[in-house]
């Protein structure tokens, strides 16, 4: 680990600490008797206060101290944990975050307001300011004339507990010219001697101007447990104490014996797992390099394929293997569990429940599913919006629910699951479901659709994501926050993901976000259609079958194949892309699927696997929906990446139209 900026590290750490405190508070809110949670909150606040003071966040430390004191009282049973207290500390947590990140602003009023509420919420008065660090009882005796005679016996366990008597004596020597005598009157007989205990006393005279407190400071860690006499040195009084006196040489011998008594190196214990914290930008940088490497590697592969040099080929293959392993390792490094994401919503639900007066229960599932860190970060805002929407419009209030024969408490369920190359995150509520008539009326009123226009159910529901659409009869403070559902959809699409809606009126809605596992590199299947080359994400490819010319001719007009008793629609990419070329004799159908939906794509040639570094399309091409991006091939040419979800939808539409026609 390299040395970094401790203040920046403190801020990161404080954020994590505050998140943890928030989680614990929310848990505590659900179970006010849980002593472990009270302790956890206390510990978090305590650490925050301590580190805050270390790094110059004095206001934070002062403010946090009051919260800590409150929890200390709860912890010690002097005050009960109450819902009000949890609520106040939650506000305090937000305030602490402001004190950390906007440390220059004036927070006095807000601090005072929260502390006022805190005092009201806890029965015990907690107005004592942070006590000053313990001051040792220092007697302000003036400096003695000439120096001090210091006689002391250390507690028997002093050496075992790490106190080095010689270091203490050295410290006394540092104060001035000293004469040291070892006192051995308490040395037990050999058979009673415990070698790790300290049996000696010392008698030291120091000629110094230092005050008595300087002498006491030397013994600060042991002063309460030891026998210590400090007396001013009388001028010219030097008669020896009635104790045994050893020469300095003897003392050294004893010291050597003592230090030799400590055994050395033991057996190595099992190694604990170590974590290294790396700034996200460095990972991004590394990712870029890996991307470039993969492109360079595919050029090398191309060259090697055209070469007869066997050793070049084998090196190329080896590098190809390493590059793909490196890519996989890189991916794993960037993955974080969605629990990071889900955890943030507990507070949201808590606040939403408080603000709407509804009873809302949040349950989660599949928190261990992992996603690219960047994806997780970009998912947070859209999900907040969707959850707000579900709580605000989806869930009924307690009376409404009772009337509908449902339990009083509404439920929001967040689920993450991995399916092939994508992660499906769903937000389910058991509310009233979407009112299709109202959506239609609203869309017609806004001119999004023609009156009476025929729409599939999914198309109708998807209208809520159209720009300028809002189903809420009145914009509440919860959902009406400027960002519309269209922004949600755009964000998800920018992640190459898509949104499905399922909704049963009266029973609830499920919004499903399908997000590709990673943004940067995918394993692709390279195909040729006419002269152009295209990449299909390999994770979506289910199988490849041959489509003979006769079969193609026979099926014309009805683009279906029967695949194990199942009718699968197919699209002729040659026609779709208007290549202007004739169908080749042995076309292939690549069957791709998303979830349960399948569609066949007719291509001219399947070239093979291709590690695909995804480059996004220019803004000019953003509306060309059939493509999800572009990539650079080994020979420097560009291949477009097919957006399988869009093609599947296209195929399904075609299927529905044909079915409707027949």
């Amino acid at each position, binding site marked *: 680990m390299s040395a970094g900026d401790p203040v920046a590290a403190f801020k990161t750490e404080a954020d994590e600490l505050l998140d943890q405190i928030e989680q614990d508070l929310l848990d505590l809110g659900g179970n006010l008797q849980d002593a472990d949670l009270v302790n956890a909150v206390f510990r978090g606040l305590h650490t925050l206060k*301590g580190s805050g003071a*270390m790094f110059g966040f004095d206001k934070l430390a002062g403010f946090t101290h009051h919260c800590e004191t409150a929890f200390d009282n709860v912890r010690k049973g002097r005050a009960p944990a109450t819902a009000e207290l949890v609520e106040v500390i939650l506000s305090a947590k937000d305030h602490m975050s402001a004190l950390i990140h906007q440390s220059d602003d004036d927070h006095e009023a807000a601090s005072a307001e929260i502390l006022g509420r805190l005092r009201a919420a806890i029965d015990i008065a907690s107005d004592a300011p942070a006590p*000053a660090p313990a001051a040792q009882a220092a007697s302000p005796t003036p400096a003695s004339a000439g120096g001090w005679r210091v006689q002391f016996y250390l507690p028997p366990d002093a050496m075992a507990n790490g106190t080095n008597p010689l270091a203490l004596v050295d410290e006394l020597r540092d104060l001035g010219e000293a004469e040291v005598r070892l006192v051995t009157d308490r040395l037990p007989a050999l058979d009673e001697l415990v070698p790790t205990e300290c049996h000696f006393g010392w008698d030291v005279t120091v000629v110094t101007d230092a005050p008595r407190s300087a002498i006491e400071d030397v013994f600060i860690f042991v002063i309460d447990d030891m026998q210590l006499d400090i007396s001013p040195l009388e001028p010219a009084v030097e008669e020896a104490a009635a104790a045994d006196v050893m020469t300095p040489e003897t003392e050294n011998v004893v010291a050597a014996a003592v230090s030799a008594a400590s*055994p050395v190196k033991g057996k190595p214990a099992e190694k604990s797992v170590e974590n290294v914290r790396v700034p996200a930008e460095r990972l991004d940088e590394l990712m870029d390099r890996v991307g470039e490497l993969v492109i360079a590697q595919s050029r090398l592969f191309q060259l090697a394929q055209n070469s007869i040099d066997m050793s070049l080929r084998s090196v190329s293959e080896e590098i190809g293997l390493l590059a793909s392993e490196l890519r996989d390792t890189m991916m794993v490094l960037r993955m974080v569990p969605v629990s990071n994401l889900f955890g943030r919503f507990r507070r949201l639900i808590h606040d939403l429940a408080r603000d709407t007066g509804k009873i809302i229960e949040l349950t989660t599932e599949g928190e261990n599913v992992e996603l690219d860190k960047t994806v997780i970060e970009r998912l947070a805002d859209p999900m907040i919006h969707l959850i707000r929407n579900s709580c605000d419009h989806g869930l009924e209030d307690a009376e409404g629910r009772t009337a509908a024969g449902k339990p009083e408490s509404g439920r929001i369920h967040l689920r993450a699951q991995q399916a092939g190359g994508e992660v499906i995150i769903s937000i389910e509520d058991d509310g009233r479901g979407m009112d299709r008539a109202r959506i239609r009326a609203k869309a017609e009123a806004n001119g999004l659709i023609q009156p009476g226009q025929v729409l599939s159910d999914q198309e109708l529901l998807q209208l809520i994501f159209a720009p300028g659409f809002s189903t809420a009869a009145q914009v509440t403070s919860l959902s009406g926050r400027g960002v519309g559902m269209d922004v949600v959809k755009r964000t998800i699409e920018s992640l190459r993901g898509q949104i499905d809606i399922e909704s049963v009126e009266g029973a609830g809605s499920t919004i499903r976000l399908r997000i590709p596992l990673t943004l940067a590199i995918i394993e692709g299947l390279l195909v040729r259609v006419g002269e152009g080359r295209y990449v299909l994400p390999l994770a979506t490819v289910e199988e490849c079958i041959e489509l003979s010319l006769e079969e193609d001719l026979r099926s014309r007009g009805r683009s279906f194949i029967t695949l194990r008793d199942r009718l699968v629609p197919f699209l002729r990419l040659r026609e779709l892309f208007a290549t202007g070329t004739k169908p080749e004799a042995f076309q292939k159908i690549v069957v791709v699927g998303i979830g349960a939906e399948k569609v066949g794509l007719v291509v001219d040639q399947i070239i093979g696997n291709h590690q695909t570094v995804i480059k996004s399309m220019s803004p000019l091409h953003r509306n060309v929906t059939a493509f999800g991006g572009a990539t650079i091939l080994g020979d420097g040419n560009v291949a477009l990446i097919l957006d399988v979800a869009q093609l599947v939808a296209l195929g399904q539409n075609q299927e529905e139209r044909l079915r409707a026609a027949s």
Partner: protein
Amino acid sequence: MSASVLTVDDSASLRMAIRIALTGAGYKVTEAGDGREGLAKAQSERFDMILTDLNMPNMDGLSMIKEIRKLPTQTGVPIVFLTTESDDGIKQQAKMAGATGWLVKPFVPEQLLRVVQKVLGR
């Protein structure tokens, strides 16, 4: 040879601040994020000194100090604990557990070095 110090604290920023101060003064620093990890390190390597927080997850400082004092490999190793508590109760408890000394947070690097030099001796 430079003295080796094991720092045990769950706060990475604090460990970083301590590391910067101690390595700057020529000490060799090993870090652990909680008592359990600190104990594991103490079991596998002899240090010249251990600097530990008290309030930590998994294993708190007091328990770690007690465990380390049972290790034959660490006999007499100075253990200094970090504390923000000003009441003597916690100090007494820590001393009973086997701590050598303490350092009150917040501290500046000079205070830290003074304590380290104090317990390590010349």
